[in-house]
């Protein structure tokens, strides 16, 4: 049913856009035709599918270019295991901006993000701006939920929200917002959110973000951070974060007591020159009755213009298990239209005493060729070697056409 609705929506949009093209609208986008082969983790069978990913943008519909349409979705057809047709509509909305130079209206399926909460909705969002240093935004509609294979939205799933934000103070950004979500059993979520950032002394950024859960009357998330950037190449970051995980009010898990989680982060990101950039970080995780330490180092090396090497190493130790591993990735452009790439992931980890230590490796190779200014073809293959598979090949072949 959902798939049929999606077909209708996309077909209708294409017809609408095609007819609108008659009066000089510009239609741009990308058609990505893909062949994918991967391991279906549930059936433990290799699956092979053809897919069509379509990203569409229609602009210049009206004289002042205030109206536009954006859409993005995919269809896949399994050709091996009889899984059939699958589809997902990520977004499809019409945008009318600068109505009376003060109002932006967006209608359709869209992703909305406030400090208090985010949702993919089938509905509308209206922004009121240029009315002083404070702007306003409201949104609401059907709350779209994806599961592993498709849409899991039920008939009573809705999301609404409102936000007021600072728009006219040069060195300060702030937002105060409210988000609510309904499901079949009632009001599942209602929370306040706030975010703020402040630039000062030409080299410091102070920022924070919080969510206050109204049913439990607790701050479910609080983040406070500071960035010091003496030059544009060196950034020092310090953050403190805490959370009390909260659940939907309609879930039985909302009645249980939980521990406070806290995290302290310190990071350094330094671009030494055009050829080398390095970063290092340390996080201390506190679970009230236990803790963990996470270390991370990485570098980005560009010895010559055509070559880029990315290296990352992570070490985690403490509650929840240990991880010791890294990622190495290399990109090489021997000639302008051709890009070659390869990478290795290597992780040694232990989840708990039963699983013991496991090793996971991933090797991948890829190549991309620019056939024309608006056409590329690429192939990416990878082999996963881990506790579950001695060898598991999967990949994709892609033909992209930009119009």
């Amino acid at each position, binding site marked *: 049913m959902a798939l049929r609705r999606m077909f209708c929506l996309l077909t209708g949009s294409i017809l609408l856009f095609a007819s609108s093209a008659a009066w000089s609208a510009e239609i741009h986008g990308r058609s990505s035709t893909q062949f994918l082969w*991967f391991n279906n983790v549930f059936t433990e069978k290799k699956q092979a599918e053809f897919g069509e990913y379509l990203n569409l943008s229609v602009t210049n519909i009206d004289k002042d270019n205030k109206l536009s349409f954006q859409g*993005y979705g995919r269809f896949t057809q399994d050709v091996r295991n009889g899984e059939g047709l699958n589809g997902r509509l990520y977004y499809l909305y019409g945008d009318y901006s600068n109505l009376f130079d003060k109002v932006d209206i967006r209608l359709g399926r869209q992703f909305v993000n406030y400090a208090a909460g*985010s949702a993919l909705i089938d509905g509308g969002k209206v922004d009121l701006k240029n009315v002083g240093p404070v702007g306003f935004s409201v949104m609401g509609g059907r709350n779209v939920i994806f599961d592993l294979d498709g849409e899991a939205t039920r008939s009573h799933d809705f999301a609404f929200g409102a936000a007021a934000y600072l728009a006219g103070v040069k060195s300060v950004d702030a937002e105060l917002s409210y988000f609510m979500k309904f499901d079949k059993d009632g009001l599942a979520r209602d929370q306040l959110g706030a975010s703020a950032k402040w630039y000062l002394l030409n080299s410091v950024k102070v920022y924070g973000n919080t969510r206050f859960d109204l049913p439990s009357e607790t701050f479910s998330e609080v983040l406070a951070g500071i960035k010091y950037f003496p030059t544009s190449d060196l950034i020092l970051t310090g953050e403190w974060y805490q*959370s009390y995980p909260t659940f939907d*009010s309609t879930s039985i898990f909302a009645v249980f007591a939980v521990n406070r989680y806290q995290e302290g982060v310190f990071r350094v990101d330094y671009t030494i020159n055009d050829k080398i950039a390095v970063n290092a970080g340390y996080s201390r*995780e506190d679970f009230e009755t236990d803790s963990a330490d996470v270390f991370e180092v990485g570098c980005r090396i560009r010895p010559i213009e055509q070559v880029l090497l990315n290296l990352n190493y992570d070490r985690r130790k403490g509650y929840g298990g240990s*991880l010791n591993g890294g990622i190495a990735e290399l990109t090489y452009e021997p000639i302008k239209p051709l890009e070659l790439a390869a990478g290795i992931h290597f992780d040694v980890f232990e989840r708990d005493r039963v699983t013991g230590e496991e090793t996971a490796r991933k090797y991948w190779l890829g190549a991309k060729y620019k056939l024309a200014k608006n056409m590329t073809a690429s192939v990416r293959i990878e082999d996963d070697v881990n506790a579950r598979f001695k060898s598991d090949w999967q990949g994709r072949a892609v033909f992209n056409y930009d119009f």
Partner: protein
Amino acid sequence: MKKIFFIVALLGCALVYLQQQSYAEKTPHKEYSGMAIKDCNSCHKSEGVAPNHDSDWVRGHWVVAAKANAKCKECHQQSWCLDCHKGGGTGDDLAKENFGRDYKPKSHRSDFISLHPLKAKDNPQQCYRCHDQKAFCNSCHSRFPAGSLHIKSHLMLGPNNQRYSFAIGEHSIEARRNLQSCAACHPEGDVCIQCHSSGKVRPHPRNWKSGNLKDRSSGKVCLKCHLPGTF
């Protein structure tokens, strides 16, 4: 509730005060969308604005993006966000992996199916920024036969894993630390209320606001353990 009204009133006053302040137009970024990041950063620095899109960007971008008037849309389409948050992907970036039909962000490294219990403990809220707890986690976890997952708090205490005594003591510690993992396999909490509904073990936190919850779900959640009229 009084506390909330006080906070809202205080913030309201602050907004009114700021409304009276001088109005400064924010810089539109659409015309800079094709620029190299290093050029953006040198301009940012000279304006006293922190450079962004650095190597810490993937971890920290949610703070910048979680704002009603975020500038992301001036350079990126929504597909840029949703390829990682909701799936999709047109295969342009060779380093990006697929999990079946959808892109898999780099935070989901190596054998992520085996590794995700560990990564999910790093920050209990993190998974839910992209995945719906009931629809996503449970659609996979529900396919495993009961008892087939090796979870520390579910281990038997008897010799040779005899099925006569669960590690009851440890489950509460684990549940308090990461209740989301319990919900991933027991979305309706049926296993939990077998004991907790008896009244012997109070599961609620201190300062429990039962009225708030009762109002929002018309008491449906409360009725799972309590008799009508007793809560």
